[in-house]
């Protein structure tokens, strides 16, 4: 019973921290993009606009929840919940520290891939049920995009799984720490690049944000949504960004550890708690997301699919073959 309560508190803490992060990621995004475009970003609410996310939150939750007249009412209403639940559920299998993980599954990586593939339904259903052409096209685009890039994502992670010999995220980090370089991003550089590009496409972020391309589709599958259902989609998108960033940190950048050759030179770094390293890696990846959004233009849809199928998937297979070759002949 007490165990259950502790588990409940732990889950609440993790979810609370992630939601707070999401709120301030929107702020960081507006600030960084503002700076990139030689503007100030939000400045009015609080010092340097620091209270802006709270103001946005209050505003969006007091708006009217509108359901279009000919929409499939029930599906329209649960679609944001589906996507939010199946992204938030991923937080349970992510190890933030050596001993801080909500549910230590020995197939954690597969779990994340599985729930990501279910979360797509939220987008498709939202697009279909709103009974609007813009939403519908956004839904189709998103489905084909996520479906295509899931393969590349899976292939790049397959290299990591092969090298670590485990599907458990904790074991992957430990196996990574025991290699000479300490991170998989250097020996598996091809897989790392494939992973980063597909992570951008999987979360529907720029430069692959075609499902919600403003210039073509108003707001894609979000067009008909308003008030807190819109906010739920937004939340899910940012949580998904954090999931991808954590996955990148865990599978390619060594998670909560830092490479051994660094601690040999600077031994005092071992005293730093692991969660700090993990947070730094995740923040760096989130910054990359925002940076790319501020600098790169959007791809055309056929370009997007061509990159996915003709470049990333072959590159992923090549990476897998190289890892298999190294594991078989060089590492013994």
């Amino acid at each position, binding site marked *: 019973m007490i165990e259950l309560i502790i588990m409940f508190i732990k889950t609440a803490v993790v979810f609370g921290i992630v939601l707070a992060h999401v709120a301030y990621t929107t702020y960081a995004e507006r600030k960084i993009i503002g700076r990139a475009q030689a503007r100030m970003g939000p400045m009015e609410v609080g010092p340097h606009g620091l209270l802006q996310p709270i103001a946005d939150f209050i505003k969006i939750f007091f708006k009217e929840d509108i359901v279009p007249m000919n929409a499939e009412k029930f599906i329209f209403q649960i679609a944001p919940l589906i996507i939010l639940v199946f992204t938030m559920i991923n937080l349970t299998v992510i190890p933030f520290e050596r001993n801080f993980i909500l549910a230590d599954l020995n197939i954690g990586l*597969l*779990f994340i*891939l599985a729930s990501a593939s279910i979360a*797509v*339904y939220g987008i*498709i259903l939202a697009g*279909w049920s709103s009974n609007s052409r813009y939403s519908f096209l956004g839904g*189709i685009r998103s489905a084909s995009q996520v*479906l295509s890039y*899931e393969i590349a994502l899976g292939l790049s992670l397959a290299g990591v799984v092969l090298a670590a010999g485990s599907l458990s995220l904790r074991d992957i980090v430990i196996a990574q720490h025991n290699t000479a370089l300490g991170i998989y991003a250097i020996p598996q550089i091809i897989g790392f690049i494939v992973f980063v590009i597909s992570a951008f496409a999987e979360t529907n972020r720029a430069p692959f944000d075609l499902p919600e391309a403003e210039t073509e589709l108003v707001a894609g599958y979000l067009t008909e949504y308003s008030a807190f259902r819109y906010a739920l989609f937004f939340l899910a998108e940012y949580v998904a960004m954090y999931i991808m960033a954590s996955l990148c940190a865990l599978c390619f950048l060594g998670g909560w550890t830092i490479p051994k050759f660094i601690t040999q030179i600077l031994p005092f770094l071992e005293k730093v708690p692991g969660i700090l390293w993990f947070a730094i890696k995740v923040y760096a990846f989130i910054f990359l997301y925002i940076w790319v959004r501020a600098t790169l233009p959007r791809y055309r849809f056929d370009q997007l699919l061509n990159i996915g199928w003709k470049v990333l998937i072959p590159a992923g297979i090549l990476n897998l073959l190289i890892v298999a070759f190294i594991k078989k002949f060089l590492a013994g």
Partner: protein
Amino acid sequence: MLVQILFGYFAFVIVFSSFMGITRKNIFHSLLWILLMFLHMGGIYLLLNAEFIAMVQIIVYAGAILVMFLFVLFLFNFKEEINEKIFLSSWQARLYTVLIILFIFILGLLSYEQKYKGPYTIDLIEKQGHTKTIGIALFNEYLLLLLVLGFMLLIPLIGVGLVHRRRQKNGNS
């Protein structure tokens, strides 16, 4: 006790949602019921301690195949193409289908054995890990079958490419 309750829940939802899936008029709704069924089948596998198969079930069936179905629904206009004639209209065809399914069902029941005797015991799986056991068995014992299966899956891929090529040559229809 908890296991029985969970199994009862999963079994009930599977039966109910597959029934709803084949009786809905709106194809989209029936697809959603089938999605629910696939998710609960993953749950049944989890109860059997087959976590790898459970996840693969969800990734492949719910995540890939059903999305393909949705695509087909999106890209074709079914209101015009489906008329009143149902796929299996003659009573003979229905009878044969039912008989074949019954035959497979009985075959499955007959081959069920309570006490499994073979190399893959519970001890081995606990020691080695579920995923690893599957991998070793799949790529050693069943390698030929796996290759044949992969080849079979390659054939439709080539077929689709050929159809596309032919269409391009004949001008877009």
